[in-house]
C-alpha cells in the first residue's frame, strides 16, 4: 500500500524535477505580481489602512496563489495521462482507486508545496519577514492544506474530463475567480453583497486568511476557524475524488 503510493508520488516529482522550464516559468507570475502589485498598490494601501505594509498583506496571498495554480495544474495532469495512454497502465493494475487518488494527491500537493516555498523565499528578498519559527510551522500547515485541497479538486475535475478542451473554461470560470475573490490581493471588506457572498464560499479565502494569520499576524476569521474549514474541505474533496476515481473508465 505505502510503496504503491510512494511510486505514484515519485513519478510526479520526477516529472516536476525534470521539467526545469515549467519550474522556472511558473515562478514568473508570482514574481511579477509581487513586484507590480507590491510596489504599485503599496502607497495606496498604506494610506487606506493608516500606515500598514502592503507587502505583509500581499506575500501570503501570492504564496497561496502559486500553490493554487500549481496544485490545480498537477491534478489536471491526469488528463494528459489519459490522452497519452499512461492512465490505462495504472488503471489495469491490481491496486485500489483510493491508493491512486492518495498517491496522486500527495504527489501534486508536494510539488505545490515546493513551489509555494520557493515563492515564500522570494518574498524574503522583497522584504517580507516571518516573525518566528512557530508561525512558519503553522504557515506550512496552511500551505499544505491549500495544496491538498486544490490538487484534490484538480483530480476530481480531471476524473470527469476526457481531454484538455475544457481547460480554459475551468481556469477562467473557476480558478481565476477563486483566486481574485479569495482576499489574496485586497482585503475583503465593504464589498457589494454578491461579491461578499462569493468570497465567503470560496475555499481559498480561508486558506489565505489562515496563512496570513500564521505568518503575517493578520486574520479576519481566526486561525483555528480557518484551519477547521480548509482541513475539512480537504478531506471532503479527497473523498469525492476517490469515489469518482473508482468509477473512472479508460
Amino acid at each position, binding site marked *: 500500500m505505502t*510503496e*504503491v503510493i*510512494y*511510486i*505514484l508520488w515519485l*513519478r510526479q516529482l*520526477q*516529472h516536476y524535477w*525534470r*521539467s526545469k522550464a515549467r519550474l522556472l516559468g511558473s515562478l514568473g507570475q508570482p514574481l511579477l505580481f509581487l513586484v507590480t502589485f507590491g510596489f504599485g498598490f503599496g502607497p495606496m494601501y498604506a494610506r487606506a489602512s493608516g500606515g500598514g505594509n502592503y507587502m505583509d498583506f500581499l506575500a501570503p496571498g501570492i504564496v497561496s496563489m502559486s500553490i493554487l495554480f500549481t496544485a490545480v495544474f498537477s491534478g489536471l495532469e491526469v488528463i494528459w495521462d489519459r490522452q*497519452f*495512454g*499512461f492512465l*490505462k*497502465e*495504472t*488503471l*489495469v*493494475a*491490481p*491496486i*485500489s482507486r483510493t491508493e491512486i487518488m492518495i498517491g496522486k494527491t500527495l504527489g501534486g500537493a508536494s510539488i505545490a508545496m515546493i513551489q509555494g516555498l520557493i515563492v515564500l523565499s522570494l518574498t524574503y528578498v522583497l522584504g517580507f519577514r516571518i516573525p518566528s519559527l512557530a508561525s512558519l510551522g503553522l504557515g506550512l500547515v496552511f500551505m499544505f492544506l491549500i495544496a491538498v485541497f486544490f490538487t484534490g479538486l484538480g483530480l476530481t475535475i480531471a476524473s470527469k474530463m*476526457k481531454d484538455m478542451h475544457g481547460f480554459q473554461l475551468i481556469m477562467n470560470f473557476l480558478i481565476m475567480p477563486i483566486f481574485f475573490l479569495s482576499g489574496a490581493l485586497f482585503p475583503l471588506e465593504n464589498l457589494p453583497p454578491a461579491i461578499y457572498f462569493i468570497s465567503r464560499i470560496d475555499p481559498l479565502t480561508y486558506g489565505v486568511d489562515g496563512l496570513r494569520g500564521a505568518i503575517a499576524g493578520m486574520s479576519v476569521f481566526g486561525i483555528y476557524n480557518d484551519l477547521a474549514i480548509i482541513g475539512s474541505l480537504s478531506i471532503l474533496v479527497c473523498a469525492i475524488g476517490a469515489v469518482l476515481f473508482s468509477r473512472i*473508465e*479508460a
Partner: protein
Amino acid sequence: MIQPLLIEKIVSGSAMQNILSVQSLTKKFDDFTAVNDISFNVEAGSIFAFLGPNGAGKSTTIKMLTTVLRPTSGEISINGFNALKEQDRARASFGIVFQDHSLDDELTAYENIVYHAVIYKVPKKERSERIRKALEIVGLWDRREDYVKKYSGGMKRRLEIARALVHYPKILFLDEPTVGLDPQTRNAIWNHIRSLNKERGMTIFLTTHYMEEAEAIADQIAIIDHGKIIESGTVEEIKNRTETESLEEAFLKLTGRDIRDDNVPGNKMRTIRGMRRRTRR
C-alpha cells in the same frame, strides 16, 4: 431452466483448463450495441486470436476483459476470478499490451518497468532480477537508462511487452502488438510471444489485422463482426467450413469486402452512418 445452470456448474468445476471464460458479454453505448451477447472460452496454455474488421467490437471486448470498461451485462472469469467482482485478483492474473501507446515518455525505460513492478506488487527481492530478465528477452537491457521519448516505435512496443511480463501473468493480452512495425521487428516479437507460450505455458490472447500472422501462430481463432462472434475454431476448421485456401480468404468471405469505419465510442454518428451505408447495399 435449472438444468443448464447445473451442468454449467459441474463443467466449470472440473474445467480449470479454461483460463478465460466469457458468458453472454454485452456492451451498449446509448442505443448502439458494440458487443452483442458473445460467449467463448480460452484454454490455458493456448494462443487465441480474436479477429475482426475495424469497429467490429474487438477493442471494446478487450477493454471489458481487462476491467477498464464495465459491461452492460454478462460474465467474465479470468484465471478463476470473476473480473467484475474480484477485480484486483483478476487484474493480477493478466498482462496487457495495449493497442495504443501506454508508456510514460518522461521516464526512462527502467523507471517505467519499476513503476509497473511496484503497482503489481512484485516482491522487492525478486524485482531487479525479473526486470533484468524481461528487458533482456526483448533486447533492451543496454538501453534501459534511456528516456522512452528517445525510443523508436519498435523499441517502445518491445518495452511494453517486457513490462507486461514482469509480474508473471497467467494470460497475456496483446491488442494489435505488431501494427506499424517493420517485418524484422514483427518477426522478433512473434518469436518472443511463441517462446513465452511454449516455455512458460503462458496463455496468449491477441488481436491482429495481419491474417497470415494469426494463421501462423494461433491455436484457436474467433472472428467477431457487428458485435457478434460469427465463426470460431482452429484455422483448419474455419478454412474447411468456408471452403477457402487461407485464413485471409475465409475472413473476407465471412466479413465481406466493404471498408469499415472505425467505431470509437463518442464517434457514434460516423458509425451509424457507416452502418446505414452497409445495410443499404
